[in-house]
């Protein structure tokens, strides 16, 4: 019995291996894969190159030297690493105000490089806590008094209370937001997080590219028999309507998984390898103090990547299903573009009209925006944040679709029978 199980497993693995080999034996598919990986490498260098570091002479790094900006910036900012107590924040604000006074409002680049650059994030945090809505930082620094700076965490708590009242549409939601804010560690623990902040933007864009490419690839796996007119031999084979179809689905999901994590992994490794990974544990609230997503910078990055993975699985499932139904990938390959790119604009334009757009697929590939907006769902007394809700929903959808893909493909040519009488009438 055990021997039989091993044999069957071996056979299935072999079938899967051939399924993948069959797909990647095509030059165009290999090229797509190479391009996707090259984009990952290119994006990594672009991300590293987009960092700005000013040295103590006030000179910004340029040319090939820019590649080291991330690590230099982190080293400079990490002078302020540690608990952001009100006293330390006051030190930073005081120093900045002093410099502005000394230079009549215009802090020179050399002073920026020597001092300001290092505590710029702290000033930003202070300004964002103080004003709630984003304002020009130097203006806020002029307005804020020393007493207010010393009481910055009291102001923060007051504003959190106001935010929970404003964003919570029901008492349950209000309570939920308060609970979320209550999870924040005060005073916040600071570490330079520029590499994570920069990478969120780049990985978000790259995720969209991956999701569209994965949709295209998964569709190709189901289109192959029909494109090559090989379906007759396939469906007449012993496992042509069972294990072989299951293997096709497995190949689609495996391709989605491997391509996605390889692409995202390569990009992350290169980028953080160049820029450093300082600030993984820095709370996201240092950047966006009133976000209801209590997480670290590193966790936000991972959230983007995981949401992208769910989007990839969904993209693969949907394109496989449409291809299996239509026997061609021509329409299917356009669907991910609609789901994850066009839907973004449609949802934005309809956000005032209907709440349905808060559930749409584009949320998975627009995490940066989603964590900024406190969108909550409520089922009875249970309140759920938008992202976990959408993640669970679409992960479930991508799995639920699999039996439909199987049925649709494996039933090829086997339409419902009619009785001979009905047949004659027809």
């Amino acid at each position, binding site marked *: 019995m055990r021997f039989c199980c091993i044999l069957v497993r071996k056979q299935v693995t*072999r079938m899967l291996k051939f399924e993948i080999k*069959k797909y990647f*034996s095509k030059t165009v598919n290999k090229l797509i894969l190479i391009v996707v990986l090259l984009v990952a490498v290119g994006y990594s260098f672009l991300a590293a190159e987009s960092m700005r570091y000013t040295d103590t002479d006030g000179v910004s790094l340029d040319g090939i030297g820019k590649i080291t900006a991330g690590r230099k910036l982190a080293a400079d900012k990490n002078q302020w690493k540690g608990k952001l107590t009100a006293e330390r924040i006051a030190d930073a604000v005081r120093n900045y105000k002093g410099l502005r006074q000394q230079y009549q409002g215009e802090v020179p680049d050399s002073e920026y490089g020597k001092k300001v650059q290092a505590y710029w994030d702290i000033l930003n945090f202070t300004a964002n806590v103080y004003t709630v809505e984003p304002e020009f930082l130097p203006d806020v620094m002029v307005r804020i008094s020393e007493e207010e700076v010393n009481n910055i965490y009291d102001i923060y708590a007051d504003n959190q209370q106001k935010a929970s009242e404003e964003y919570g549409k029901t008492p349950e939601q209000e309570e939920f937001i308060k609970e979320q804010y209550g999870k924040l560690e005060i005073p916040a623990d600071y570490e330079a997080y520029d590499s994570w902040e920069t990478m969120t933007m780049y990985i978000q864009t790259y995720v969209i590219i991956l999701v569209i490419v994965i949709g295209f690839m998964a569709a190709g796996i189901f289109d192959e028999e029909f494109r*090559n007119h090989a379906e*007759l031999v396939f469906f007449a084979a*012993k496992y042509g309507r069972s294990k072989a179809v299951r293997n096709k689905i497995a190949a689609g999901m495996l391709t989605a998984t491997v391509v996605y994590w390889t692409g995202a992994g390569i990009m992350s490794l290169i980028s953080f390898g160049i820029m450093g990974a300082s600030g993984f544990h820095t709370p996201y609230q240092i950047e966006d103090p009133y976000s209801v997503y209590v997480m670290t910078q590193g966790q936000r990055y991972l959230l983007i990547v995981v949401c992208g993975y769910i989007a990839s699985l969904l993209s693969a499932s949907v394109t496989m299903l449409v291809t299996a139904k239509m026997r061609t990938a021509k329409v299917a390959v356009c669907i991910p573009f609609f789901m994850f790119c066009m839907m973004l604009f449609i949802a934005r334009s309809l956000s005032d009209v209907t709440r349905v757009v808060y559930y749409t697929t584009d949320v998975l590939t627009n995490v940066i925006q989603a964590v900024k907006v406190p969108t909550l769902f409520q089922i009875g007394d249970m309140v759920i944040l938008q992202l976990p809700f959408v993640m669970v929903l679409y992960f479930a959808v991508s799995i639920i679709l699999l039996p439909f893909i199987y049925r649709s493909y494996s039933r090829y040519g086997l339409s419902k029978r009619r009785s001979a009488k009905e047949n*004659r009438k027809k």
Partner: protein
Amino acid sequence: MELSFKNVSKNYGGIFAVDDITYTMETGVYGLLGVNGAGKTTLMKMLCTVTRPTAGEIRWNGEDIFRLEERYRDLLGYLPQDFGYYPNLSVSDYMMYIASIKGIRPAVARKRMKELLEMVGLSRYKNRKMKALSGGMARRVGIAQAMLNNPKILVLDEPTAGLDPSERIRFRNLISELSEDRLVLLSTHIVSDVEFIAEQILLMKDGKFFYTGTSEDLIASMEEEVWTCVVPRQDVNQYLQKYPVGNVKHVAGGAELRILSENPPAENAVLEEATLEDAFLLYFGEKAGDENVEV
């Protein structure tokens, strides 16, 4: 071992590609003959469970083949008329892939592939990509893949299409070798492909079998005799209109015609031995359209 069709029909939007066929096959070679559009391919597709009949049943040893599913397909080898393959796979990878979906263990599949590629004369090309093969070579791979699981039922739809004459002869011999202890259904519109190897001939027209039996019986059932005669070239058209003419050969002093007729069509007509091709001409030529033709 019995494969039976019971009132099998296949209807495509009101048109009957296969119309109420009832027939039983056992081991041996069955030659399915018919002109294009007769319903041969549809019948074979149903037999291979690629498409389901709109009415009727196909049974293998008394059980519906669509209920048997894998158990039935395990016995099946199929070479479709429109044989498609994965162009970027090598011949051996293609064969191993098909072996895997046929549920053949890798070690057995490798051995079987070697034997079959040798049998179809493609051993040397096992590492060549499928897209680099000629039409005839690809067809031979098609025959080999159909044989991979040593099928009890071998369905070959136009297997000799694209093969050159020597390949066709080799193929006919191959089928003869393979036909022992299995059911081979071979569809073609090239009569010579089945003339000497098919034990039973099935003539199909407009979705129906209108003759089933041995080729000898089919030939014997012809009321017409086969004649050859030499006629003046200017009279050829006249003969073509009057009789089914199997062959026109230009010879010194006129044209030599092979004519099907109950009586000698010309004074110099010589009686010839009828072949299956003559029967085919008779039933699928212009006269085959006549509803009153009796077989």
